């Protein structure tokens, strides 16, 4: 127990120091006037002018169109799997709707998977389709965050940077070098990295065991550093080849938190408002710690129904105890709880345990974090989502004292608030709207793996995960039907672009404004008071919007579990 708490503290302290280092590095990448040689070669290959200044609309279009081209290429490669090399197992190509779902899922940084990786993809498509799209989605997300911060920093300016420069710098200076080094650490710890697809072992009891191999380490790095989350194997980071030791588990966690936490530092540096950056970091951390405590407490307390069946769930020096259904022994309860909180906070969607088998309150945590979508949040977008809530907070504070709200020295006016509200409302509208539709859909019952309130949680989780671009699942729920493939696919695209583009427009709008000097009526935003208020607004807006849905799912199920009521 004490060791577990020490484990949490050590990981969060390491995250904080890494955030400082990476934050500085990112600030330099976004600001530097010098192009590296590889970057200049990249601009030449693309035929673009790195000196071009882009307004928010052109920047957004470059993002949208290049992502569309990448998604189309990924789709084509998935469809061509049967004629590509490195397909020793002879897996057929994905069907058109499945390939569409996969390509949309990976380009939007969601990484929802309607397929089992090890039994349906070849090593070629794992590399050129999946690894590729994971790089694209994550790099684009960080690039947009850079432009967004630049927009906040600039005054009376029409441009927010150059998309190609931001993209290539994040790719060459952050993603590729980090992934390469980390991949070798992962191999050292026991992750395969080979082009051969499988090997056969004869077990001690004489049974034939087929082991699936492949370029796993190079896949896992970008999966976590890029807050992507799609698995090489069906069971994702619970699979020993994707997550062989407690050390790789911790590195996965630190990788996921790296860029989302670092962006608060980058923000502080680029705006010369370091305190403000730490206030945002603090807001992230407060929410994260609260959710971690909830899921750890719930999973360690376990399921009373298992004790009644004869299982010993008490923690001791020889066993972790708790609810071990769907969890791996090497991670136990504590490192699983930390992973659950991280993967849904940082909207990665990688899982090291089956979320469907979490206790009701344990399962509420990933749901709630994806609904709030800004407990660190995904690469780039998490920070943008928090700023969206920060603008909402100064607006509400301004309403209370009857003054025009200001944020970072800029007046917040009707246009910004309209765009922020569009982004704030799209998220619950997509989640709750699609969940309501699916609840009425006649065939939904046949897809459920569990019934009663847990069945409703499965549906709610699917659309929350899709809209939040998370990708984790209550995976017993069978979504490979045309209805679910389509609606969850739409939720992913809506969740990605209808929140990112309005916020980019906010950045463009703020960049064009003059800075106003802080007066006596200005609400200071670099204070613990503002941090508290911000967390409050996030929780109240999220709470009011989603509480009824959560009450129908996990909260009812918790009461039923305690009352010993089972569903078959």
């Amino acid at each position, binding site marked *: 127990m004490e060791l577990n708490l020490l484990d949490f503290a050590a990981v969060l302290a390491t995250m904080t120091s890494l955030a400082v280092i990476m934050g500085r590095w990112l600030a330099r990448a976004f600001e530097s006037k010098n192009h590296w040689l590889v970057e200049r070669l990249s601009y030449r290959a693309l035929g673009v002018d790195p000196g071009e200044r882009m307004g928010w609309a052109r920047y957004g279009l470059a993002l949208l169109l290049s992502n569309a081209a990448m998604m189309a290429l990924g789709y084509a490669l998935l469809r061509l799997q049967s004629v590509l090399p490195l397909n020793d197992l002879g897996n057929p190509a994905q069907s058109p709707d499945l390939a569409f779902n996969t390509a949309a899922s990976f380009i939007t940084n969601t990484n929802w998977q309607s397929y089992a990786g090890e039994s349906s993809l070849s090593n070629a498509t794992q590399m050129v389709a999946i690894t590729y799209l994971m790089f694209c989605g994550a790099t684009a997300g960080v690039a947009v965050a850079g432009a967004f911060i630049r927009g906040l920093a600039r*005054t009376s300016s029409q441009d927010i940077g150059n998309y190609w420069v931001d993209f290539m710098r994040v790719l060459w200076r952050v993603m590729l070098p980090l992934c390469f080094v980390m991949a070798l650490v992962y191999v050292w710890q026991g992750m395969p990295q080979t082009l051969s697809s499988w090997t056969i072992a004869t077990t001690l009891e004489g049974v034939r065991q087929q082991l699936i191999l492949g370029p796993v380490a190079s896949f896992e790095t970008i999966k976590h550093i890029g807050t992507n989350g799609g698995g090489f194997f069906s069971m994702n980071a*619970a699979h020993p080849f994707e997550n062989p030791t407690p050390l790789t588990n911790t590195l996965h966690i630190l990788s996921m938190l790296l860029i989302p936490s670092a962006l608060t530092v980058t923000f502080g540096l680029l705006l010369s408002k370091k305190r403000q950056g730490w206030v945002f970091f603090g807001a992230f951390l407060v929410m994260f710690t609260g959710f971690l405590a909830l899921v750890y407490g719930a999973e360690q307390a376990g399921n009373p129904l*298992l004790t009644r069946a*004869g299982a010993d769930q008490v923690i001791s020096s020889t066993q972790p105890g708790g609810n071990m259904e769907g969890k791996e022994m090497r991670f136990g309860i504590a490192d699983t709880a930390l992973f659950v909180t991280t993967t849904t906070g940082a909207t990665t969607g990688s899982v090291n345990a089956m979320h469907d088998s979490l206790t009701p309150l344990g399962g509420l945590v990933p749901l709630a974090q994806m609904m709030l979508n800004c407990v660190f949040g995904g690469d780039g977008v998490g920070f943008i989502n928090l700023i969206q809530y920060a603008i909402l907070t100064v607006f509400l504070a301004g309403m209370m004292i009857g003054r025009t709200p200001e944020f970072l020295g800029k007046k917040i006016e009707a246009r910004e608030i309209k765009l922020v509200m569009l982004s704030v409302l799209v998220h619950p509208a997509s989640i709750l709207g699609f969940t309501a539709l699916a609840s009425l859909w006649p065939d939904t019952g046949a897809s459920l793996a*569990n019934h009663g309130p847990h069945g409703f949680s499965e549906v709610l989780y699917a659309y929350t995960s899709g809209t939040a671009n998370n990708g984790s699942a209550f995976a017993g729920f069978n979504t490979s039907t045309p209805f679910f493939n389509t609606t969850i696919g739409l939720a992913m695209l809506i969740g990605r672009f209808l929140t990112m583009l309005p916020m980019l427009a906010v950045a463009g709008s703020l960049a064009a404004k003059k800075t106003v000097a802080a007066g006596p009526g200005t609400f200071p935003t670099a204070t613990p008071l503002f941090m508290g208020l911000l967390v409050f607004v996030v929780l109240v807006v999220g709470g009011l919007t989603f509480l009824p849905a959560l009450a129908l799912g996990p909260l009812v199920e918790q009461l039923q579990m305690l009352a010993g009521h089972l569903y078959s």
Partner: protein
Amino acid sequence: MNDLNLSNSVRESVISPLNGLFWPCVRSAIFVVVVTGVIYPLLTTGVAQRVLPQQANGSLIEKNGVTVGSAVIGQFFTDMRYFHPRPSTTMGPDPHDAGKMIAVPYNAGVSAGSNQGPTNQALIDTVAQRVIDYRKINDLPANALVPVDAVTASGSGLDPHISVANAQAQAARVAEARGLTFSQVQQLLTQHIEGRVLGLLGEPRVNVLILNIALDSLPVSADAAQIIDK
């Protein structure tokens, strides 16, 4: 406020939003796939195969020239002479009817968890049955609580480890089935406990395959051999 211009020779953009974006977007897709989808994984594979070939090829364990498994992937044991792993819910094709899927524990070809929720009747019934079986196999009293990892399925279905408590509860049965003394098995078990990484990360645990390989190479003691003879 400092100006964040990207280059000194900046050219004011008077271009309409869409103008000239088509080909750069198409080229970016192709350029990035070559760099991140081909060069990066191949380079990583090349270095890993040269520097860490054992792990890069799946941490395979050989015994008398035969590959008996991977050090990081669990396998199924039912023999009373071996320690048993955690329950696994992986499936595989029925050998008698290829179109049908049946339970094939520790099928490393398709990882799978149960995905059963906490109030699922089937989960609770399955656990209750596993508890009964575990007590019977290991000769435990009828009211003994069983370590939770011994009766719940892992997430991957391929968990290579069991808890120390689970291993200890099996030690007497393994010793008896092998004709070893309890202390011999206990000693070997203690040697095979993997601690927390840096004293902090993960859980103390026992790798079932590696422990069972060590058991197979243990000489049978004279005392135990006599007991067997009788």
